[in-house]
């Protein structure tokens, strides 16, 4: 199944560090793991709602803020979409559930980052008029939903290496990453597609992910 009708499909050639099935050096290149450890267990921070953004390594803060930006975008998309009336009744519980998850991701990442969290960006889901009917045409809404979900999956995956030394945060990122993949699969299903593009999902660099998201940032 192709996702050529999505933004992500359009930038596919720019995918970096993809897992090439035949690439023989994938399992011979032993990069040294970054030795960064978080100073406090994330679970404690989450339980107490006490942010520890200031004490996080810069690389981790940057990565989480990047993730938060994408989550803001998704949360705003479903916030508007669920109110707009564009979603046919039989799909509303799916998109309501997805919206709840994205809101939870925003809350969680903001909680972890504390005062280091970036502010919510301005959004324009018509992308300057390119998707002017996003709130009236379910096909347009669905195409953008798939784009955002597949983008989220690929973007989180692309950042995993930056969190390899921060075990608790890496685990939380993975726990978000697979939720985005569930969403992507079900959204594709609603679009009468298979929920995947093959046996292996590709990671996306931060640069490529931001390039895909930028048209929707006002």
């Amino acid at each position, binding site marked *: 199944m192709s996702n050529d009708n999505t933004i992500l499909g359009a930038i596919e050639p720019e995918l970096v*560090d993809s*897992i090439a*099935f035949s690439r023989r050096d*994938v*399992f011979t*290149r*032993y*990069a040294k*793991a970054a030795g960064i450890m978080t100073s406090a267990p994330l679970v404690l921070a*989450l339980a107490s709602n006490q942010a520890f953004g200031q004490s996080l390594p810069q690389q981790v803060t940057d990565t989480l803020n990047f993730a938060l930006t994408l989550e803001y975008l998704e949360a705003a998309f479903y916030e508007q979409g669920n109110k707009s009336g564009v979603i046919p009744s*039989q*799909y509303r*519980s*799916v*998109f*309501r*559930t*997805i919206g*709840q*998850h*994205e*809101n*939870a991701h925003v*809350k*969680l990442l903001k909680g972890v980052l504390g005062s280091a969290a970036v502010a919510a960006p301005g959004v324009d889901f018509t992308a300057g008029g390119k998707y002017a009917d996003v709130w009236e045409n379910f096909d347009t809404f669905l195409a953008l939903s798939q784009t955002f979900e597949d983008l989220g*999956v690929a973007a*989180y*995956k692309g950042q*995993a*290496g930056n969190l*390899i030394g921060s*075990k*608790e945060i*890496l*685990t*939380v990122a*993975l*726990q*978000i*990453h*697979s*939720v*985005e*993949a*569930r*969403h*992507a*699969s*079900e959204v594709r*299903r*609603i679009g009468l597609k*298979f*929920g*995947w593009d*093959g*046996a*292996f*999902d*590709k*990671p996306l660099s931060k640069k490529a992910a931001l390039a895909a998201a930028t048209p929707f940032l006002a």
Partner: protein
Amino acid sequence: MQSKTSLSRRHLLKWAGAGTTVAIASAVLPNFGISAALAAELGDGDIGVLNYAYALEQLEAAFYTQALENPFGNMQVNDQRILQQIRDHEIAHRDFLKRALGSNAIPALEVDFSAVDFSSRASVLGTADVFENLGVAAYNGAGQLISTPDYLVAAGSIVSVEARHAAAIADLLRPFSAEAAGRGNVDQKGLDKALLPSKVLPKAAPFIVTEVTAATLP
């Protein structure tokens, strides 16, 4: 069909969790007259994690292969196409991990699906639901145990496809439901499950005859 020998052996041989030594396993095995070739120790560090994933992918690949060789009555084309794709993915994952592990790979595992009623759609899809969600939780929990970035990205490229499968199976069970978007597996924080090998292996044990030990994995 599993032989009676396999079934009785299943009750004797269990996954050994963290802390169980290989010495115990090898001391016990001869008493049951089981050949040493039927035992598999996952190994240390990244090799151990990859073997752990390889074991789970073997289980999944064998399950879908058997499900499609013995299709339940009136299997609809939609069920069939999705199950075939998932089977092909699991085989690709299995073979990818085997190739990556090379001579460090554990042997092929003997499986036991006698608890599954392959003539029943509910039993097959219910088991698929268990396996896919177990796979997601297993990869999410194992990410923090990986120290080589390339392996982490490879695991990430697989886990999101498992999550896509989980959503597709949930959708087959309950089309366009909140569950198909993750409800039931995703918590109030918007997070999927993450389980360590010591939690995952006992859940897989009833389906695997070969004794698999994980002496050093948590």
